[in-house]
């Protein structure tokens, strides 16, 4: 039997809606999040942050703070070395400023004290001498030649000569003859757009406990999307060997990409090393907004040509992103994704990243794609309006398909865009009547998905159950999906399997929970680990029966003799083999380690109906439907949850969410009262339609589903609002004052 290559199409567990393994813990408060962890003797850590958008640090005097009774340690960037690696140096400099503060809220120093009152008092005693410097927070301003320089000489070799001093990266993608393409068009529309920086809005703030022993060994407990990344970054900053730092992840209260780096963890370790005691840091909501990474903000120009019958002849996009005070390459993703939904003969995207005096950008679901696709899908919609074409028919006419050369260079294999569009066209939502001041918008969305480093261990317990140990924090239901795939492969009920997420000392490397990779990659490794355990169980049965191992097959959770031995022996179930494992050779387990490849791209289509109050400009989302190709939905509830959650976050991005800075470069809305994320009462029940076009790169056909759903809402909402009010907006968020202004401007 080939245990490593067989693929499965008939499922007993996969595809069902089993009980969530974390449900009871989460609704009863038993689940332990980052801030719930405590150890004896723990000190309170607090961080002093910059009041300036941009300033030189002339001196930091910590003597008075250190002299305060109850203060155990004070740290600044001087407590660390300067890493050679540029990326690590940026992460470190973002955790504690070195030489300059680069944005309002940038960490400058930190204290560890016996209690919160003492820590607060100590922060006030740290004297920092600043020389304020000119600042810039707008991407277009930042790209000008005479803009305030955020950091000197950070441009990489891609940046064309003559670019402004804050431009750090340039990229270009595409193929075909643009001039010839536009010449074939009957109509060409060119528009400019802006989108605001938005925060991931996870409900759980960053929190950690660090305990650094006087033997140089350390433990860190924290909320994160990737304990191994935390270990690697912290070890690098602290000058430790990775094996000497164990990082244990807590339950996670949302991440959405924002917990794929470190902010407070190395600071807590540095304080603990200096204090000789454990140190706990919990960020306030204000600090989360001011000093953790939102997504990029953007300024974009898009030009698209179309024939009268709706064929796109050429498309061009110029994307200008700012990702805060440190270089970032997010614009690469946007420039590749912008036109991915279309089969085009001529397409070109160009992207620039510029430094600004804002927090260091962190990933946010499908980083870089939502804003680029918003701009493209808005222009496509306007072309449909001008040419009086059905917007869904136009998408279908131009849809990328198997064999399409994508705008970013690859030729697509099997993809689900066409099926998704057809499902949307057939859905009752698309044909429902609309009332006065109401509009319907649609948009396609896309994300690449990837696999990555993954380690899984699967133990067959003597009582006939199975334990799966994996290393990726569960941000979207992965424990259920992993248990289901293990149960499916082993042929035992789902409730006989439990999946555990472990610390960095217990398994080999696991990449971060990001890129929609976990159900795909950890699932793949789990299936392979289960097959390895099955191979051992078949071998044990073969020995008992005295037949060749190759003459044993695994079916319905039992080893069975096959071939000439078929029927000679009664099948042995997993429980029967497990019960005598001690007597037949010892514990039975399987493991698999892989840098998983073969993740299939994912497409989605969203339909949105809105009503706009012409007197206030307020938008109400009346109806919303998400169509997405999941490859294979392992646990449909969670897939729907991802689709609904992405839609909800995208609706917030489209309608209300934005970082607002004053003239001094200080963030004005660092809290959920002023930074308006959608709450349940703002949203309709979000309907979902799951398409299943199997990914050939996964044994069960799984595709990642977590990121694509945040991509289409921006344009779907903008297209709906534009059709409702009769005037097109080119700016996000479309908050009521902006919509009202647009309505009044048209008279």
């Amino acid at each position, binding site marked *: 039997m080939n245990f490593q290559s067989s693929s499965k199409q008939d499922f007993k567990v996969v595809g069902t809606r089993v009980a969530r393994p974390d449900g009871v813990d989460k609704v009863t408060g038993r689940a332990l999040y980052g801030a719930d962890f405590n150890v004896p003797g723990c000190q309170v850590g607090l961080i002093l942050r910059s009041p300036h958008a941009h300033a030189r640090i002339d001196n930091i005097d910590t003597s008075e703070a250190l002299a305060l009774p109850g203060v155990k340690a004070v740290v600044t960037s001087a407590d660390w070395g300067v890493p050679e690696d540029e990326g690590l140096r940026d992460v470190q400099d973002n955790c504690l400023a070195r030489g300059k503060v680069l944005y309002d809220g940038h960490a400058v120093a930190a204290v560890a004290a016996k209690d919160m009152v003492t820590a607060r008092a100590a922060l006030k005693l740290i004297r920092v001498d600043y020389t304020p410097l000119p600042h810039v927070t707008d991407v277009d301003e930042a790209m000008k030649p005479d803009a305030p320089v955020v950091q000197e000489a950070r441009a990489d070799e891609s940046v064309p000569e003559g670019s402004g001093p804050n431009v750090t990266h340039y990229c270009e993608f595409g193929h075909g003859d643009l001039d010839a393409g536009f010449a074939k068009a009957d109509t060409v529309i060119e528009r400019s757009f802006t989108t605001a920086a938005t925060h991931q809005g996870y409900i759980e703030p960053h929190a950690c406990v660090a305990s650094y022993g006087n033997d140089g060994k350390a433990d860190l407990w924290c909320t994160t999307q990737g304990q191994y990344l935390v270990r690697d970054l912290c070890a690098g900053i602290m000058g430790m060997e990775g094996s000497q730092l164990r990082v244990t992840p807590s339950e996670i209260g949302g991440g959405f990409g924002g917990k794929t780096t470190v902010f407070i963890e190395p600071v807590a370790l540095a304080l603990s090393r200096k204090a000789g005691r454990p140190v706990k840091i919990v960020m306030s909501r204000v600090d989360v907004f001011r000093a953790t990474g939102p997504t990029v903000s953007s300024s974009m120009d898009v030009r698209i040509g179309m024939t009268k019958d709706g064929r796109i002849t050429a498309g061009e996009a110029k994307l200008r992103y700012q990702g805060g005070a440190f270089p970032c390459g997010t614009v690469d993703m946007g420039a590749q994704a912008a036109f991915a939904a279309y089969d085009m003969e001529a397409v070109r995207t160009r992207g620039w990243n510029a430094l600004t005096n804002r927090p260091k950008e962190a990933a946010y679901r499908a980083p870089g794609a939502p804003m680029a696709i918003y701009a493209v899908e808005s222009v496509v919609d306007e072309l449909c309006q001008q040419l009086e074409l059905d917007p869904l028919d136009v998408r279908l006419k131009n849809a990328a398909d198997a064999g399409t050369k994508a705008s970013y260079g690859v030729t*697509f294999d099997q993809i689900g865009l066409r099926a998704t569009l057809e499902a949307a066209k057939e859905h009752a939502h698309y044909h429902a009547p609309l009332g006065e001041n109401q509009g319907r918008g649609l948009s396609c969305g896309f*994300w690449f*998905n990837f696999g990555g480093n993954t380690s899984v261990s699967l133990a067959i317990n003597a009582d006939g159950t199975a334990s799966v140990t994996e290393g990726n924090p569960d941000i979207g239901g992965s424990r259920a999906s992993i248990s289901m795939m293990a149960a499916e492969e082993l042929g035992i009920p789902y409730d006989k399997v439990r999946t555990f997420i472990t610390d960095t000392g217990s398994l080999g490397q696991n990449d971060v929970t990001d890129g929609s990779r976990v159900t795909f990659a950890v699932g793949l490794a789990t299936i392979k680990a289960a097959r390895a355990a099955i191979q051992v169980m078949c071998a044990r049965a073969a020995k008992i029966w005295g037949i060749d191992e190759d003459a044993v097959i695994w079916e319905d959770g039992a080893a069975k003799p096959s071939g000439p031995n078929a029927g000679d022996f009664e099948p042995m179930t997993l429980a029967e083999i497990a019960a005598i494992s001690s007597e037949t050779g010892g514990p039975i387990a399987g493991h698999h380690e892989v840098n998983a490849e073969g993740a299939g791209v994912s497409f989605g289509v969203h339909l949105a109906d809105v009503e706009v109050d012409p007197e206030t400009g307020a938008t109400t989302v009346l109806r919303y439907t998400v169509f997405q190709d999941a490859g294979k939905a392992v646990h449909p509830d969670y897939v729907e949850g991802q689709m609904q959650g992405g839609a909800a976050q995208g609706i917030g991005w489209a309608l209300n969410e934005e970082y607002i800075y004053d003239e001094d470069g200080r963030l004005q809305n660092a809290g959920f009262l002023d930074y308006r994320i959608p709450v349940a009462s703002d949203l309709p029940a979000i309907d979902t339609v799951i398409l299943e076009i199997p990914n050939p790169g996964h044994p069960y056909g799984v595709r990642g589903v977590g990121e694509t759903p945040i991509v289409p809402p921006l344009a779907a909402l903008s297209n709906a609002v534009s059709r409702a009010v009769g005037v097109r907006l080119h700016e996000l968020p479309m908050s009521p004052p902006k919509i009202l202004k647009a309505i009044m401007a048209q008279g």
Partner: protein
Amino acid sequence: MVAVKLWGSLRDLAEGQEVVEVEASNFKELLDALAAKHPALKPQIDRGVSLAVDGLVYRNSWFTEVRPDSEVVLMPYMKGG
């Protein structure tokens, strides 16, 4: 020889070529050959790149096979949220 398609902004670093031919049988050999043939590409390769081989995207998979008839596209290093 394997034909490697470069993304647009890399072309200036490869004497204006959109497609570069190198002798390679896997991901690692391909990157090494690219950097040797066009040293200006090395900083980007060192920062990280992905490789799409016949439509599938690979990150850091040195021993991924590439054949003369493979469609090979160099891409920026993928990251997600």
